[in-house]
């Protein structure tokens, strides 16, 4: 074989949900609660700005780090999270927050380094660590702790010896959030054991109780933390692929050196949309957050009523109910899809810590949610 894949590529696992896709394809009445992106369209003002930029012919590369005006707007925007970054050299605009995550693993992880990742967690961190030659150290979070990370869990997992700690709060898949008080011991732990922290805050705006807190805002954390954020979730811009990373100048410079060869610059049209999103779409974001919050309460209430209680997820757009006794989450998700045409993601796709749970996305209209929950209720009753 001439195209023999590298060992690095070979170790990247295939998608855990491919077979579910195939089952879903066979039906035309599937209601999907398996979606990790907003059901809202990008606010019209942002789309309109993107169209206008195309009409003006603004289709060349931008500066590697992104348009200066956009970096300035991002710098102003993140002040709401008590973060302060210089647009000149502490911000890099990337092709989705995904690219920022990838750049960080490549820029800061050496072969043999240990990267502590709370479980369950979004799926792209592990392959990122693997491609950088690092080792993943899973750190379990539990429903008893509302899937928050604790310093005890870090201690128990041996994270004191790790090099990097990845945080993803509000969390995909659990919907857990970490308040300032929850983060404090984690910040202490990171400083004490000299950990680098990657904090994926892509769901920051989707916090339904209190305010989002960033670990980078703690004293002594800024210099050791890279924050990832972007426009996909809060501004419903997934397909426009636009994110950014914030960090100390040397760190962002390292990421930019890779980015300049591998990506050159993030999509220009999307940068124009993002600039407008920050300039004028605050109300659209608030409206979407209000809608998510209502659906969140609705879904939590319905799961409680049908006998699948779940902890009160306060962030992102996921709830994480336990499957009823006697089920494993894979079988439940598959049978539910086959029998009732409702798509949910089995929790163990997100690591062993998600076993026995389902990730249920409420990034779907209320009418569909109502129907989907009715079908789940039927399914649970039929199999009781």
């Amino acid at each position, binding site marked *: 074989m001439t195209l023999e894949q590298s060992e690095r590529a070979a170790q990247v696992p295939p998608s855990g949900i491919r077979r579910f896709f195939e089952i879903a394809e066979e039906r035309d009445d599937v209601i999907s609660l*398996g*979606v990790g992106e907003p059901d809202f369209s990008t606010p019209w003002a942002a789309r309109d700005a993107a169209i206008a930029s195309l009409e003006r012919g603004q289709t060349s590369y931008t500066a590697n780090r992104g348009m200066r005006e956009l970096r300035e707007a991002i710098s102003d925007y993140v002040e709401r999270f008590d973060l302060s970054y210089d647009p000149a050299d502490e911000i890099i605009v990337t092709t989705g927050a995904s690219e920022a995550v990838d750049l960080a693993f490549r820029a800061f992880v050496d072969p043999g380094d240990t990267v502590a990742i709370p479980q369950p967690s979004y799926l792209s961190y592990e392959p990122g660590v693997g491609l950088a030659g690092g080792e993943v150290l899973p750190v379990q979070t539990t429903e008893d702790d509302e899937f928050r990370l604790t310093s005890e869990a870090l201690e128990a997992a041996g994270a004191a010896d790790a090099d990097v700690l990845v945080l993803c709060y509000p969390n995909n898949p659990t919907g857990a959030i970490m308040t300032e008080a929850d983060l404090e011991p984690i910040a202490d732990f990171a400083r004490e054991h000299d950990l680098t922290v990657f904090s994926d805050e892509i769901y920051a705006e989707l916090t339904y109780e209190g305010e989002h807190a960033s670990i980078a805002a703690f004293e002594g954390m800024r210099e050791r933390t890279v924050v990832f954020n972007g426009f996909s979730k809060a501004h419903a811009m997934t397909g426009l692929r636009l994110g950014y990373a914030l960090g100390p100048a040397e760190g962002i410079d390292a990421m930019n050196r890779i980015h300049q060869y591998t990506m050159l610059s993030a999509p220009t049209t999307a940068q124009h949309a993002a600039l407008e999103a920050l300039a004028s779409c605050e109300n659209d974001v608030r409206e979407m957050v209000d809608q998510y919050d*209502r659906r969140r*309460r609705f879904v939590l209430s319905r799961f409680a009523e049908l006998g699948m209680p779940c902890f009160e997820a306060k962030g992102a757009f996921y709830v994480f109910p336990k499957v009823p006794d006697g089920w494993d989450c894979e079988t439940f998700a598959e049978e539910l899809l086959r029998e009732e045409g409702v798509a949910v993601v089995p929790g163990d796709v997100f690591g062993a810590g998600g076993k026995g749970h389902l990730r249920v996305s409420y990034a779907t209209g*209320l009418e569909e949610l109502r129907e989907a929950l009715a079908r789940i209720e039927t399914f649970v009753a039929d199999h009781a």
Partner: protein
Amino acid sequence: MSEREVLELLRENARYSTADIARMTDLSESEVEAAIEELEAAGVVRGYQAVVDWDKLEDERVRAEVELNVTLDRETGYADIAERLARFPQVKALRLVSGDYDFDMEVEADSIREVSQFVSEKVAPVPEITQTVTHYVMTSYKENGIELGDGDDDDRLSYSL
């Protein structure tokens, strides 16, 4: 503040059931019922109506926006004129507005002739009304905040992580 929250949901969709409103808020069903009763009793909520796209129906429905200019005198104020006009069932909305004219009146009837007759025979003769300008609605694109087009397609994948 529960009334405010309930009002917001009713404005979004007046057909939400009491149970669903309770699920979406931190209120019990009886609290939701009480809030609705209070909103109705206080006259905050005056009614519940369907938002209709008339283009989707066979029956013709003629609507017009009518600009009205009036003169006032010591005995007659805006409210007096408005009260008189609002009593006609053809008048669907009546608002005093700033700008080039005084009243903005929405009229609805079964035919153009009916609207014309109404304006010329019932509205124009009112002594205080000095001028009417009638604009027939040709096509409606958005009503009560609801876009009447096909909307944006949901072309998301059924699973994404």
